[in-house]
Every structure is written in structure tokens, then in C-alpha cells.
């Protein structure tokens, strides 16, 4: 793996004419990356909203959207157009600057987090050594936007939503991060691609969550799921928006495209949490399909050293790259589906119960998992030595 080399940049270097200066290539590569990240967030929101409506519909003995396109697959696009055309309402008495800035901040922070996420083993925007750390840090920023939105709206319900969000996210950041430390200890890296590559044994089934690797990863995965639900404000932890209690919580006063930014953030956050869980617990890119594809292609790397020096693209590895990307996407959407399933099944818990659960149970349990995993790893490594 060529850490730090970017497939967009290498591709441009190979195919662009000699006369184009290097900085232009870098800018273009960055532009492609940004476009891909933004496109991913938008397309993910469109698809996930449709999926959510279909999943909830079928759970509730109805069909969900059926009219716009085949099984309503264009419904989200139609809704998006509607939201774009709606009047941009800013309530009287609102702090206008903050009110307008809040959705942008929320979306920007999740876009930042998305940048650290690899699409395929060698197709990524930013390959960070502290990739997981960057994702968690960026996605925590959304809280500031939500609190801003709640405060700036000058509405009583939004204040409730904002305060709940602040309390809840602070309480669940800790178990979320600590639970993720367990697979990080097993992997020995924060880098998503490296962590995924470490799980490629046994025909791609040597996942961290498998008990023979470290028995503490499985409980950590459960803790991570609960904390991730709270972190992404999904039921049963959807208190900041709690429809039946707070009307629409922090986004009560938002409408049109600004409102849809919050939605895009929610689904992007679900995607990220699910993907992080898939990478650090459930094998990431690795599956029997990926293992098979890796054996079929000559060289699984997309960027290989060229004979005449420098790098060149190895398009022969595309089947492997696509298989790996598809695997991760499928795992991610399996996680998203689980989150939707839970949302449409469970009632909402109360704010004090949310706090109790976060501080009294999840945090100590996550710390216990870290302790156990650490002892296990120490013993394993001393035996191996």
C-alpha cells in the first residue's frame, strides 16, 4: 500500500499532458476528491431517505413511496427539488447569522469527517494515520452546529432540543471512543485501510470481532452500536428531535434546504458510524468475495511503482478494488438497515435514562472492555514472543 499517494493525483499525472504544472494537477485532484465526498453525502442522503421510508413502510404493513419511479425510488429527488424551491424562512427574533450558519457548520463538519473515509482500498481522498480519530473529531463538531441552531432559533422547543443534544452527545462521546479503542488495540493502528487489511486472513473472515482474535471486541461492538445510535441521534436516542415531545427539537424553526442539511448530516453520520463499525469490527473491505477477487487479479494494488520510476495506475486491479468497495458498502448499509430497524421498533427512552445509561453503564463497561482487551493483547504478544 502506498500510504499518502492519492489515486486521483497519480491518475492525473499519468494521463495529463506534460505541459500542465504540478500544482494544477494537485488542485484538480483535490477538486475531484471534494466532488466525490459531497456527491457521496448527497447520494447517500437521497438513497437512505428512500430506504428509510421503504423499511419503515414494510415494517408497518404499508408500502412507503410507490408513485415517483419504480417503487418510488425518485421520491427523494422530487422531495429535494421541492425543498430547494421552498421559501427560506428565518423566524423573527432569530439570531440571523447563527441561524444561517448552523446548518452549514453541521454539514461541513460531516463532510470533513467523510474525507477520511476510504471508498476502496486504494481509492480515497485523505489517507490519515489518525483516520479514525479525525472522523470522530469532525463528527463531534456537528454538536456545535446543532446547539447553535437550537439557540439561534429563539424558540422554546429548539432550546430543549439543543440542550438535550449537548448533554447526550457529551455523555456518549466517551463510550463511543473508548469502545473503538478495543479494536484499535487489536489492530495497532488508527488508519482505516490498514485496520481493514489486517483482517484479510482466513479468506477475509478473520475479523476483529471474531472471538479467536480478542473476546473483548464483541462486547465492545455492542457498546459501539448503542453509543453510535446516541451519537447519530437515532431512535431510541432521538431525544434532540423527539417528534412527539419537542415538535421537531432543534430543527423546529428550520424549513426548506436548510432543514434538509440537517437531514443530510443525519444520514451521513449514520453512514460514517456504520462504516467505522464495519471497518473496525466486521472486517472492513475483507470478505470471501474480496479474498477471491484478490486471488484472481495479478496485483491488487491500484497504484504500482512504474518501471521507469514514479507511479502508474494498475487498472487490472479494478475487479479487486470494486469487490472490496462493494463489500464495505454492503456492510455499511447492513448497519444502516439495523439502525432503521431499531428505530421503527423501539420506543424512545427518557433523557435521564439516556444519561444514566451513558455514564453509569456504557462508560464503565467500555473501560472494562479496554482493560480486558489490553490484558489479552499483552498475554498474546508475550506468548507469541
Amino acid at each position: 500500500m502506498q500510504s499518502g499517494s492519492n489515486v486521483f493525483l497519480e491518475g492525473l499525472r499519468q494521463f495529463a499532458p506534460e505541459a500542465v504544472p504540478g500544482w494544477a494537477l494537485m488542485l484538480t485532484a483535490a477538486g475531484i476528491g471534494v466532488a466525490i465526498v459531497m456527491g457521496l453525502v448527497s447520494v447517500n442522503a437521497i438513497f437512505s431517505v428512500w430506504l428509510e421510508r421503504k423499511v419503515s413502510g414494510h415494517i408497518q404493513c404499508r408500502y412507503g413511496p410507490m408513485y415517483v419511479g419504480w417503487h418510488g425510488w425518485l421520491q427523494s429527488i422530487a422531495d429535494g427539488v421541492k425543498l430547494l424551491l421552498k421559501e427560506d424562512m428565518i423566524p423573527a427574533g432569530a439570531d440571523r447569522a447563527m441561524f444561517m450558519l448552523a446548518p452549514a457548520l453541521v454539514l461541513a463538519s460531516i463532510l470533513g469527517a467523510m474525507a477520511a473515509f476510504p471508498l476502496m482500498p486504494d481509492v480515497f481522498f485523505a489517507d490519515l494515520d489518525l483516520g479514525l480519530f479525525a472522523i470522530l473529531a469532525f463528527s463531534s463538531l456537528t454538536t456545535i452546529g446543532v446547539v447553535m441552531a437550537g439557540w439561534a432559533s429563539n424558540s422554546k422547543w429548539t432550546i430543549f432540543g439543543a440542550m438535550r443534544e449537548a448533554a447526550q452527545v457529551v455523555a456518549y462521546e466517551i463510550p463511543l471512543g473508548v469502545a473503538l479503542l478495543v479494536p484499535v488495540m487489536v489492530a495497532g493502528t488508527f488508519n482505516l485501510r490498514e485496520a481493514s487489511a489486517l483482517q484479510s486472513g482466513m479468506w477475509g473472515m478473520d475479523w476483529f470481532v471474531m472471538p479467536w482474535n480478542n473476546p473483548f471486541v464483541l462486547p465492545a461492538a455492542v457498546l459501539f452500536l448503542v453509543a453510535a445510535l446516541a451519537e447519530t441521534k437515532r431512535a431510541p436516542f432521538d431525544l434532540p428531535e423527539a417528534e412527539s415531545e419537542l415538535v421537531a427539537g432543534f430543527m423546529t424553526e428550520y424549513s426548506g434546504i436548510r432543514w434538509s442539511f440537517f437531514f443530510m448530516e443525519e444520514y451521513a453520520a449514520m453512514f460514517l458510524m456504520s462504516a467505522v463499525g464495519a471497518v473496525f469490527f466486521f472486517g472492513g473491505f475483507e470478505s470471501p468475495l474480496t479474498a477471491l477477487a484478490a486471488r484472481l487479479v495479478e496485483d491488487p494494488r491500484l497504484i504500482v511503482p512504474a518501471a521507469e520510476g514514479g507511479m502508474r495506475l494498475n487498472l487490472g486491479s479494478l475487479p479487486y478494488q470494486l469487490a472490496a468497495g462493494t463489500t464495505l458498502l454492503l456492510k455499511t448499509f447492513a448497519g444502516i438497515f439495523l439502525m432503521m430497524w431499531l428505530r421503527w421498533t423501539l420506543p424512545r427512552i427518557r433523557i435521564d435514562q439516556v444519561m444514566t445509561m451513558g455514564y453509569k453503564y456504557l462508560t464503565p463497561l467500555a473501560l472494562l472492555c479496554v482493560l480486558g482487551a489490553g490484558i489479552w493483547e499483552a498475554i498474546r504478544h508475550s506468548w507469541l514472543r
Partner: protein
Amino acid sequence: MAVTPSQAAPHHGDPQPTDAQRAARKGAQHAPGTPLSQFGAERVLPSGEREVALDVRTSDMEINFGPQHPATHGVMRVLMRTDGELVTGAQPHLGYLHRCAEKIGESVEWLQYLPYTDRYDYLAAMNNNLAYSMAVEALLGVPIPRRAEMLRVICAELNRIGSHLVAIGTYGLDIGAFTPFFYAFREREWMMALFEKICGARLTYSYIRIGGVFNDAPVGWLEDVARFCDTFEEKWQEYFDLLMVNQIFIKRTANIGVISKEMAFDFGLTGPMLRGSGVDWDLRRDLPYSLYGEICRDKAFGIPIARGEMGQLGDCWDRAWVRTVEMMESVKIVRWCLQHIEPGPVLGDIPKTLRVPVGEVYVGIENPRGELGHYVVSDGGKIAIRVRVRGPSFTNLAVVEELLPGALVGDAIAIIGSTDIVVGETDR
């Protein structure tokens, strides 16, 4: 937590708005850049500094819960005083759905008033029809054909099932579970289709009328009802599993909004609210009307009384449990009627223009929400002198003011939902 009257929070009325707030309410058009003092009280401190107290704050905030709020089950407004998430005072405000039903009762003929009764508790219109018809029949003293009584009981009990389905479904919605609501409406849809077959209407039936019922059941209707009962018994388990024994649901409702027996008596609670506090009282058995005396003698149905299984007796869970179990008892009553129903006339000899003998009467029946009573006065003419309605929702709602102080905002929703009010009936 139990709230005894002595511990009850002081009465919170409407806060008197300050002059600045009044001015802010008057000026509906706010130009961008309006000074903040337009949205709160402004005063000048002795030091000469301006202090602006915004209406939105983090401590002791007056908050209008409703009239447009997803959890008020209609257009009701509860003025809550909150300190953070804690509710320190609450006052329900009524009148947003007032349609002068009682006054209309004094203005139209006896039979013409019947459709208005549909509109008080629109989720249990059959029961409302029955209550009013029985009050007028008590003055008339006409015999009701047996088949009509059978059809009345079947319809009333089916409607009780439908009403409790909405109560349980929307209660799940209040707690945050969306799916049970759709499950409940699936069965309610079938129930409404049954009513559509028998009387053509799906919500406001006017089917049970003075002297009997409007028409006989169409061919095959009774078999349809039997099929509905069979299916419902299977589906009922779904609600029970999805809500009543769900750990999160129990955590949200057990020990919340506890109404003691004494409190239930003090507030004049009736129906599932009363039985949810462990009081064994049901008008169908204790003051039997229609065929219920006969059904009780056959021991065809039981009356679920809350036992405080998941927490203190009289909490929100108990009330939800009573409603859930009552649906199954209603199915048993319907089955009894289906077994005993025989052909015959369905409407007594009632003239088109009804003249009711002089007198006054109060008749109360067991509505899904409690005792629905009609106090009717006649001077022998074509129009009533007085039609007074004792609505269970109205009486049951009063307890909210007592229960909310000390609860969290989430609990407040659970408590208001557990009273299962229909605003059409509180306001009439």
C-alpha cells in the same frame, strides 16, 4: 411518584404579560434587525444599564404545550412551567374545539340531535349514540327489540376496541414507538369497514338511534364480525409484545403519573383511568344497561383491574394495560352476542316527530374513556329543554394538572397520553 393534594404545586395561571411583551404581540410584522427587547421584557437597572429578559430561557420557562403539538391528541393547550427538563407547573386550557353541542341539543329536535353526539368523542361514536338514545328512551319508556339490543352491544363493543386501538397506538407514538400505531390502525381499518357495511359511515355513524338501531345488519355481516374477532385475537398479541412487555416502554411508563385510589375518587375519574388505579368499577356490570346484565350473569366477560404489576398501582403502565386487556374482553362480549343473536325487528315503534314525556333523567354508560352521561330534561315538546353531557375525557383531564408538576418533559407527554382524552369531548 405519588402526589397528594397537600403536596400539589401552586396554581399556575396565565402569566401576566409585561407591557413590552404586549407590544411585541401587537406588532406582528418584525423587520429584520428588530431590537431584542421586542421579544422579551426590558427594564432599566438603577445603574442605568438596560436589561433584556428574553422569553426563551433555561430556567423557569413558561411553555405552551399545544394547541398545535403532535402529542396533544387534538387541539388542547397545556401551559407548562419548566425548569430545564423538569415540569414545575401545568394548567390545561380548553375550548379550542368547542362547538356548542349542549346548546344545539336545546335547539334541534330529539332525533336531529343524534348526529351531534357522534362528534363529541369521535373515536367512539357508537357509544355516544347509545348513551344519548338510552337517555331519551328512559323518558320515553319504549321497549327496545332484542335484536336491536344485540346489534347495539356488538357495535358498542367493536367501537370500544377501535377506540382503545387508537388509545394504545397513539400512546406508543407519544412514547416514541411509531410502528404499533400502524398495527393498531390496520385492525381499526377493518373495524371501520365493518361499520361502513352496516351504516355507510366510517367515523360518525348515527347508527344506534332512539328506539333501536337504524337498520338490520346486511347479509353476511355477522360472519364478518366473527372473522374479525378471530383475527383480532391473534393480532392482539402483537400489541402486547410490542408495547406492554417492551422494556423501554415499561421504563417509560411504570411508576410515572401514579394516581392513588383516593385521588381517583377525588377527581371523579371513570373508565380505564379508574380501573388503572385498582378500583373495581365498571358501569356495564355495576349499573347494567342494555344486555350487559345478562352477559354478566353468563360470566361472558371479565373486567381487567390493574394490579400494579410493573410498578406502583395506578401508574401509566397500568392504565395502558387496562385498555389493552379490555379489548380482549370486548371481543368476548361480541362473541357472546354473535352466539345469542336471533332474527327479529331492529327498530321500535318510534314516530317521525318525537314528543318526549315531561321529565328529567340522567343515564350514564361505560364509554371507552369512562362514564358518558346525559342529563336530559323534557317539557313534553319536540325539543329538549336541556341536554347536559358529562364527558369522561373532560373529567379525566383534570388530573393532569395534579400529576404533571415534578415530572420530566418526556414524562409529561406519557402522562397526558395515558389519560387518553379526545378533545372533541372535553370541549364538546
